[in-house]
């Protein structure tokens, strides 16, 4: 156990916290935008999986990682289009739409993957490498943790204030939050509710897809069945635990990533703490938070309720 407190291990735990956290952060900020617009998209897992697969496909076909990033974004946006069509146009129950999307994504990616690799060795690619930021990366502890990471990690950390600004300081954000709180307030001002919902869900899902793509391009070299392994559900839990606010979601994602990192390191140093317990902690913590926040929930009032005039 005491090995845990060696500097190298601590740095490793923190650095891997950041690594685990950043793909989730893209997806969580994307889902935050989606849910703030009133669409409870349960299809995060499927969207991330599709983003990851699209990134893998393009990376192995073209060898260009940035094209692969673009592919993940486009794949995510398309998944968002499906969700928007089902929820904003057809007014399907949001949960059913999302669950359907997850099943679809799980099946389709596997099918495409198998058609793609049929009769040959699985192609692999070499993903993003760490980018050391000059000077800053030499600072002890903080340097290797924060300033020696993948390029997209820096982008992910910047996304949080950007999303905050979008939501709370831009006129688009006010309209977007209005969608989640009372879409009729926009309707009576002559603005299209469904057009805004489409935009919000597609933007949010594009970011969610990017999260899946980053997971693939930053930390793997190949696609596997069920590649995202439940991270999409962590994102949804993080949104609830973060009380639908950018800073809260950031803290929740960080905490979950830290627990996962800790669990992995505990296994490595052979500590006698059940690894599964640590992995279950985020969910337990969320349930606790939900009970505690019951009286001042930031949940958008019309989240998950399809909008129709009268």
């Amino acid at each position, binding site marked *: 156990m005491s090995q845990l407190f060696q500097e190298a291990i601590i740095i490793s735990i923190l650095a891997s916290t950041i690594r685990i956290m950043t793909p989730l952060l893209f997806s969580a900020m994307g889902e935050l935008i989606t849910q703030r617009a009133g669409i409870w998209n349960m299809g995060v897992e499927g969207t991330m999986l599709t983003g990851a697969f699209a990134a893998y496909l393009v990376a192995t076909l073209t060898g260009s990682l940035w094209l692969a990033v673009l592919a993940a974004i486009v794949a995510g946006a398309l998944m968002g289009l499906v969700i928007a069509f089902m929820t904003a146009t057809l007014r399907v129950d949001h949960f059913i739409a999302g669950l359907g999307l997850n099943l679809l994504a799980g099946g389709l990616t596997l099918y495409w993957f198998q058609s793609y690799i049929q009769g040959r060795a699985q192609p692999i690619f070499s993903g993003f490498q760490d980018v050391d930021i000059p000077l800053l990366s030499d600072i002890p502890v903080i340097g290797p943790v924060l300033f020696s990471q993948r390029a997209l990690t820096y982008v992910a950390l910047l996304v949080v204030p950007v999303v905050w600004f979008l939501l709370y300081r*831009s006129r688009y954000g*006010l309209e977007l939050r209005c969608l989640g*709180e*009372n879409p009729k307030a926009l309707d009576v*001002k002559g603005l299209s509710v469904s057009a805004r919902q489409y935009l919000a869900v597609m933007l949010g899902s594009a970011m969610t897809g990017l999260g899946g793509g980053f997971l693939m391009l930053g930390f793997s070299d190949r696609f596997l069945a069920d590649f995202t392994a439940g991270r999409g559900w962590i994102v949804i839990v993080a949104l609830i635990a973060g009380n639908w606010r950018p800073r809260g979601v950031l803290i929740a994602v960080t905490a979950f990533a830290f627990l996962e990192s800790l669990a992995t390191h505990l296994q490595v140093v052979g500590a006698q703490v059940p690894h599964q317990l640590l992995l279950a902690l985020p969910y337990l913590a969320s349930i606790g938070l939900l009970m505690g926040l019951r009286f001042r929930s930031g949940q958008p009032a019309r989240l998950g309720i399809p909008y129709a005039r009268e």
Partner: protein
Amino acid sequence: MSTALRVEGLTKRFAGVTANDDVDFDLRRGEIHCLFGENGAGKSTLSSCIFGFYRPDKGEILLRDQPVQIASPMDAIRHGIGMVHQHFVLVPEFTVLENIIVGTQRSGWRLNAAEARQKLRGICDGYGIDLDLDAYVWELPVGRQQWVEILKALYLDAQILILDEPTAVLTPGESKVLFDIVRKMCARGMSIILITHKLVEVMQSDRVTVLRKGRVVATLDTPATTPDELARLMVGRDVSFTVTKPELAPGETILAVEGLSARGFWGDAVLKDVSFSVAQHEILGIAGVAGNGQKELFEVLCGVRRPAAGSIRFKGEEVAGMSPRAMMDRGVGHIPDDRFREGLVPEFSVAENVVLGWQRSPKYCNGPLMDREAITGLAREMIGEYQITTRDEHVSAGKLSGGNAQKIIIAREFLHASGLVLANQPTRGLDVGVIEYVQTQLLKKRAEGFAIVLASEELSDLFSLADRIAVMFKGEIMGIVDPRKVTVAEVGVMMAGRRGDIAASKERVSA
């Protein structure tokens, strides 16, 4: 006087129901023009067509004598038409300012609140509206939320303002302020369409168009007409607005409430130290603007909500905190205010609804099975006795009109009640004919020796039915008055929070 807006031959159908049939309507510049009619007469449909919320199937809308296409609220706003909806369209989590400016900015990324703030200050000062622009809407009382709605329209430079039942949530005092400001708007050249079913308000307008079953019955100059004539036009026959209530001496005390308090979901006090009593042959009216604790009071009395403190004695027995079933078994009948959500299960048939709550009674079941014959028999009997208009007893209750739904509830509650009937807003949203029927039924129960607690937002109802009126404000009783000795205005002042004559209650308690 020039015409601000004209509607010609407007027809609107919904799935076979004609809501507006060849409606002609014109609005002059600077006038208050009332749209008057019963629920379902087509007032709201007409205004929704003018506001672009619905697209008429036929007919034309002309602005300043030019035909215009109003395909969406966007078009309406561009033409200077604003609307205050009956159910406010506000975001409680936003500030007043945010509610007003959301979706109005046309350029730039950043929210530009400074300009909006200045413009709103100007509007507020001009009309003498006092409103904190940075308050969250959830913090505001309902009466002030209405100002936010009105400011939303004024901010968008509305020249024609549609007010849909604007006084439903206001005290008489607040209504007067509203009318004063609306008059100021007219003086500045705005034109107002006022939708209402209250005669008192119609009489304050310049002209009135009466709608019945989707058609225009008449357009009249208000000063040249009388409430009686308008009521007759609205219903299509003579109506007596005053039901005859025989003088009856109160008998034994049935319900005595002492120091009753209750808390809401958030732990806030929704009822504070409420005391009153009701005797046989007596109707106790509960007056108050919606949301001042009436609903909670009824919930506590029928056992749905647990009281935090106080005693409720029913026929001498302490019943505070008993379950709704225990209260039903003791003979308390309850007519809740939301008939399709609390009074009935809309998906269930008329017969199932008639027996609802008494399905365990051996009269209507055989062991674990429902006795369909007995239930059907009962339903048929009730349909006959209470004149419920339905094809048969298998129709789902949700398909019936509000009036017939209410009759199902009344039939069920009157069948089992003995001694006490709790009626919360029993006539809200009903047609005049049905209102008369419900009132007559309540008076019949009064004559039979029941004690009745009756809450209504229509003071005229209480003045004609109640023997005493308790006025509620923020969960407290401001006073209990004798309707023969006070005026509507005096009760109105108490509804706004002024304490009144509690003596009437003291008399009764000591008697």
